[in-house]
């Protein structure tokens, strides 16, 4: 079964075609600069059978981008798409599990748009375009927040007046759920533990967003992101945790202009704000290694310290709920997978938690998954490559497998 997975951004449309149940990737690509004209022309970068093409096409919206992508996949690559999976960032209170798209679920899907105004609306438009152009093609939505629906009330409830929380659907939703869920299942397999039994802390350290997830018996019990993706770790351009009083001060400074404050906290803060130069921790690691850039040194220390604190918190949360120490700490996504200095700095000095890193293994990773645990460490340290698209393809296949369109 060939499943087309869409990951819809505000001005991009990434896709992969995955054959299930093998999980083999058949093609991948990205429609770039979708929307109003920009300095560069819109194009689709498409890779199939090891060959990459760049095709310039007009894509004023996601519907047009979708048509062009389908055209390339079906006409050029001769692929036979039998189902579509959509990564949806926010499922709100409505969607906890993967759901097949039909008329009944659309009103609830529309209601989620307000919760993720940058990400959900283009995905909703794409789903509508798919319904219109390929009404018989099964579509499944997989929600990033879904994995975190198991976070207990004591960790997901904010101390706000109940009527306000209910009216605005305010609770901790958590994000990066598809990635956390994927690496947890891979870690369980690597450690020969049933997914339903694994206790771990997953560190999704992306070059943009980042979050930690505490997992007990394979289920999420906490995530560093909350109602919005702003809190928690210090990210590329997002501020992470910040006191409510500071946000109120900022609102006063900006005369109550919420979009301006949101832009400050979303786009100009984090590592970029601290270093004044780059929002990429890899640049900061390079500058920090030279030891001459004080702002970079400071940004690195703050970035690492925040991860370390949440790692300690979540190791304790896991131990408290399960009655035993975690089985593993997992590093994933761009930074977690490729920057050994970050892994070293995070784990150093945590031996009292029963976690020790093997520095030589950490610095010489060739293939993933990798085990970088030092001998004597009670808790395993794993580096696992995330694959959200494969996780989504598995969900789609699982949901549809009783009625396969045809065999692979």
């Amino acid at each position, binding site marked *: 079964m060939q499943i087309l997975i869409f990951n819809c951004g505000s001005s991009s449309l990434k896709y992969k075609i995955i054959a299930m149940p093998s999980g083999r990737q058949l093609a991948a690509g990205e429609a770039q600069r979708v929307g109003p004209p920009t300095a560069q022309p819109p194009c689709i970068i498409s890779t199939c059978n090891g060959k990459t093409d760049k095709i310039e096409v007009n894509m004023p919206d996601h519907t047009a981008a979708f048509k062009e992508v389908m055209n390339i996949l079906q006409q050029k690559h001769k692929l036979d798409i039998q189902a579509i999976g959509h990564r949806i960032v926010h499922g709100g209170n409505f969607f906890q599990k993967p759901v097949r798209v039909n008329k009944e679920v659309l009103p609830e899907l529309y209601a989620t748009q307000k919760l993720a105004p940058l990400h959900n609306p283009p995905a909703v438009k794409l789903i509508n375009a798919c319904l219109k152009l390929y009404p018989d093609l099964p579509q499944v939505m997989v929600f990033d927040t879904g994995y975190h629906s198991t976070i207990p009330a004591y960790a997901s409830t904010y101390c706000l007046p109940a009527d306000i929380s209910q009216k*605005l659907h305010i609770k901790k939703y958590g994000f990066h759920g598809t990635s956390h869920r994927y690496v947890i299942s891979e870690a369980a397999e690597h450690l020969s533990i049933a997914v339903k039994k694994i206790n771990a802390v997953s560190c999704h350290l992306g070059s943009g967003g980042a979050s930690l997830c505490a997992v007990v018996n394979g289920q999420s019990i906490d995530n560093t992101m*909350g109602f919005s993706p702003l809190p928690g770790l210090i990210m590329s351009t997002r501020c992470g945790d910040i*006191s*409510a009083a500071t946000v109120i001060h900022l609102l006063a400074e900006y005369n109550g202009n919420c979009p301006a404050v949101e832009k400050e906290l979303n786009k100009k803060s984090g590592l970029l704000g601290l270093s004044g130069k780059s929002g990429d921790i890899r640049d900061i690691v390079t500058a920090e290694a030279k030891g001459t850039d004080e702002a970079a040194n400071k940004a690195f220390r*703050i970035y690492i*310290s925040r991860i370390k604190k949440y790692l*300690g918190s979540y190791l304790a949360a896991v131990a408290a709920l399960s009655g035993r120490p975690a089985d593993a700490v997992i590093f994933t996504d761009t930074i977690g997978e490729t920057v050994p200095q970050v892994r070293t700095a995070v784990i150093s000095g945590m031996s009292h938690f*029963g976690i020790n890193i093997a520095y030589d293994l950490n610095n010489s990773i060739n293939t993933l998954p990798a085990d970088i645990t030092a001998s004597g460490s009670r808790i395993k340290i794993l580096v696992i490559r995330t694959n959200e698209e494969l996780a989504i393809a598995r969900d789609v296949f699982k949901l549809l497998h009783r009625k396969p369109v045809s065999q692979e």
Partner: protein
Amino acid sequence: MNFLILEPEIDNFVFSFYCKRRKIFYHKKADMCRGLNTTQQEWQSCLKEIIDSFDINSYNAADTIVVIRVICGGTVFTAPEIVNCNTITKLEQLIPHAPLHMPGTIELVKACNNFFSSIPVLLVFGDTFFKSLPERERVYALNRTTADKIPRERYGLNGLVHQAACFYLWRILRQRFCNCQPGVISIHLGDFPEVVALKGSRAVMLSYPLPGETFSPETDPGIILTLAQEFNWGPEKLNKILTQKCGWYGLTGSKTDLSRIFKTDDNINALAQQVCRYQLLQSCAAGAAVAGRIDALVFSGRFCKAGNYLRYSLKQDLETALAGAKKDIYVDIYDQSYTAAVRDIADNYFVNY
């Protein structure tokens, strides 16, 4: 040694007298002055009334110390200081940092210096405890231009009580930790609960405030921005809601506090108990991660007795999490008022002095 403790506030003034030998402790709100709006001359008459009311001479005036609590020492004072010929000049440097508090405080210091000419006057500062806090704990990840527009660094709110609680703990554990820098977690359960981790005597981690009676410390800016946009609330209204309608009140729907939450076991209090336990566990474990070890926990603050409901589960959960450490976390409660904390800091200062 006896301590006369003076605690001036913006619009009121509290004084206390403590006789260590006779274990006598007076604590009174002074109605005869206008807080930090009082002039030096008014302070002097006020001090005379205080002394008359105590009959200080019967307590051996020669063995008495005057202690003044000062809201901040900024970068000028890094420890308690006995008033000397340079002190007033140094205090004057702090006026821009605390314009409402410092001028009145200086007047009080001058008055004390004149009035108690033969008695040492000791200043203790509310922010000294957090001086050792590393920069990584104090700054927000904002860009410099933005950070310049707002209070850019954060300090804890209960430094004097944390400090006194830690002195109390160190006295008890002196033998046990004579050869190492212990990791201590100080849990303040007051109006603005917070957790501080110490490595030796250095504060190395400060939690964000935990929920209070009506106060919510939410650290997700998305929530504040949503409230502002959805209800069209300005900064004042937001501040009012977050400080007066949230916290345990927001969660339970009734005016309550930590001691009541742990005495009642209905569903809504059960959730509040779980939230409190969980947030404390997270803050303590974050402190342990930064401090590199954890040897002792100490509860303090107005609701420190809630620590009796929390101590066993907290100890057990932390010891389970600290899989690589010896399982022997010492837990205690420092059940003293804010004024008593000032007294204990002064006492400790003179013991070492």
